[in-house]
């Protein structure tokens, strides 16, 4: 049960999707060449790669800007989500009052709110952070609250019987018990936050991958848009992996998803 899978294991897991992607790219390349599709409609992978390496410097600058925005937004959004979950869990009346509203709020599309936020808060960092926070906060809050609510009854009973107070029960039992659930929320929020950052940049920014996409769209540079999409995918993936890595460091005692429970030893 080592934390790191061996190279051999990794290879066994990695090669099927790797081959699938390779196959897909080859088919794409062949189709574009065979049918003679115009580059402004659908550029071939090789053209996209060539363009990406040519404008690598500018792409890197925009990527860094988006990454920075994403990380700040993700940190703030997740913290707010976790804080809301804790408060609502500890004050049941507040939870019954606000939980339905919380669910309802998710029916408001963020992209519709973004222009409003620009009007209210200008074109600085603040409205963009708010967009990402809105996107991140929900999965974190809901998964944390679910985790708190699903605390093991026998453990809860034990803590009460030995006279633990509300704060002790929360700190020593409910919070650590909710960590796996919280992390699955964080994983979702991590990928959402990249999307949130790009949307925020579409609406109003002077740099960033979202801004770059808008710029290239008006120039019909489909190849560059594709390069931007690839970068967005890679960013999402990296953030997802980062959260998974932190989860592995934080969660102890064979509770990670995928670990079978109760490996017996006599």
């Amino acid at each position, binding site marked *: 049960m080592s934390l790191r899978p061996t190279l051999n294991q990794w290879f066994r897991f990695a090669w099927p999707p790797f081959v699938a992607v390779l196959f897909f790219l080859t088919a794409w390349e062949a189709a574009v060449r065979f049918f003679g599709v115009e580059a402004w409609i659908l550029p071939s992978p090789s053209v996209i790669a060539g363009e990406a390496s040519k404008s690598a410097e500018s792409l890197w600058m925009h990527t860094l800007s988006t990454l920075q925005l994403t990380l700040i937004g993700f940190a703030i959004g997740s913290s707010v989500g976790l804080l809301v979950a804790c408060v609502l869990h500890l004050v049941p009346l507040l939870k019954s009052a606000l939980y339905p509203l919380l669910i309802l709020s998710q029916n408001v599309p963020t992209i519709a709110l973004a222009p409003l936020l620009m009007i209210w808060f200008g074109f600085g960092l603040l409205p963009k952070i708010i967009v990402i926070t809105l996107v991140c906060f929900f999965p974190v809050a809901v998964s944390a609250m679910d985790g708190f609510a699903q605390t*093991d009854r*026998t*453990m809860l*009973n*034990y*803590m*009460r*019987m*030995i*006279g*633990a107070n509300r704060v*002790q029960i929360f700190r*020593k*039992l409910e919070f*650590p*018990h909710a*960590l796996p659930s919280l992390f699955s929320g964080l994983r979702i929020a991590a990928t959402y936050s990249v999307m949130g950052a790009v949307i925020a940049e579409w609406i109003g920014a002077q740099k960033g991958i979202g801004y770059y996409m808008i710029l290239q769209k008006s120039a019909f540079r489909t190849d560059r848009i594709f390069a931007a999409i690839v970068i967005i995918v890679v960013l999402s993936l990296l953030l997802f992996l980062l959260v998974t890595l932190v989860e592995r460091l934080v*969660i*102890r*005692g*064979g*509770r990670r998803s995928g670990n079978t*429970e*109760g*490996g*017996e*030893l*006599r």
Partner: protein
Amino acid sequence: MSKSEKENRRIGRGAEAGSESDAPIKLELSGLHKSFGSKRKPLPVIGGVSLQVHEGEFVSLIGPSGSGKSTLFHLIGGLLQPEQGEIRLDGRVINGERGHIGYMPQQPALFPWRTIEDNVVLDHEVNGIPRRETLDEARRWMERAGLAGFEQAYPHMLSGGMQQRAAFVRALLSPHGLMCLDEPFSALDAFTRSEMQTWLLDIWEETRRSVLFVTHHIEEALLLSDTIYVLSGRPSAVLRRIEVPFPRPRREEIAESPEFLALRRELTGLMKEEQRKTRSSDISGIL
């Protein structure tokens, strides 16, 4: 309640059976009543239970299923308030007060993210005793419980019996004088269970803590206890109090003595009758 007290019988008390009755009373329940359900239609669960646990005495509670044994523990633990009656610990009324007992639940309820060592000292932690003051004692008892070498292991790496032993050590290390054990072996297989009983017998005779032990296993109660209280079905009251005459230290072999068999037969008969009564009253309740 006085009726059931009058019915109490003393069965052939052995000279070595200990002088529990001379020891001060650790826990005393007098005339406890508790019902659930609405005010208009209350469902009485505990109907006047009175019992005593002396200092250093091992007391078992047995009764038919659904006789409110867990409710009784929740009353003692302060999770519930009795409608009537008193719970006294060391002479002080503790109705509805929490944090006065050590507790071992049916399931081990070890926290999966804590090592065995950290689990075992949890009760101390909750009671605000610094870890370094307890770790030595904890390690000693873990070794005694056959958990040496597993201090840093996580609960899922241990067998069911080992987990229960860890849960027992956790309750044993509790800074409170009274240990409440709630059917601690009911989830174990028969072989592990009998192994655990012998182990518990050994370790208890060494420590002589005051224990209140809930079980529905008659032989287990006879093997381990100084005193057995038989509870009736709902609403439960003490049906009979039996002092177990076998001398200590006890051996498993007493289970083959004629005296043991006679007591077992008597208790089995009592329980069967209660179970039948409970069932027929449940049926008439439905009709």
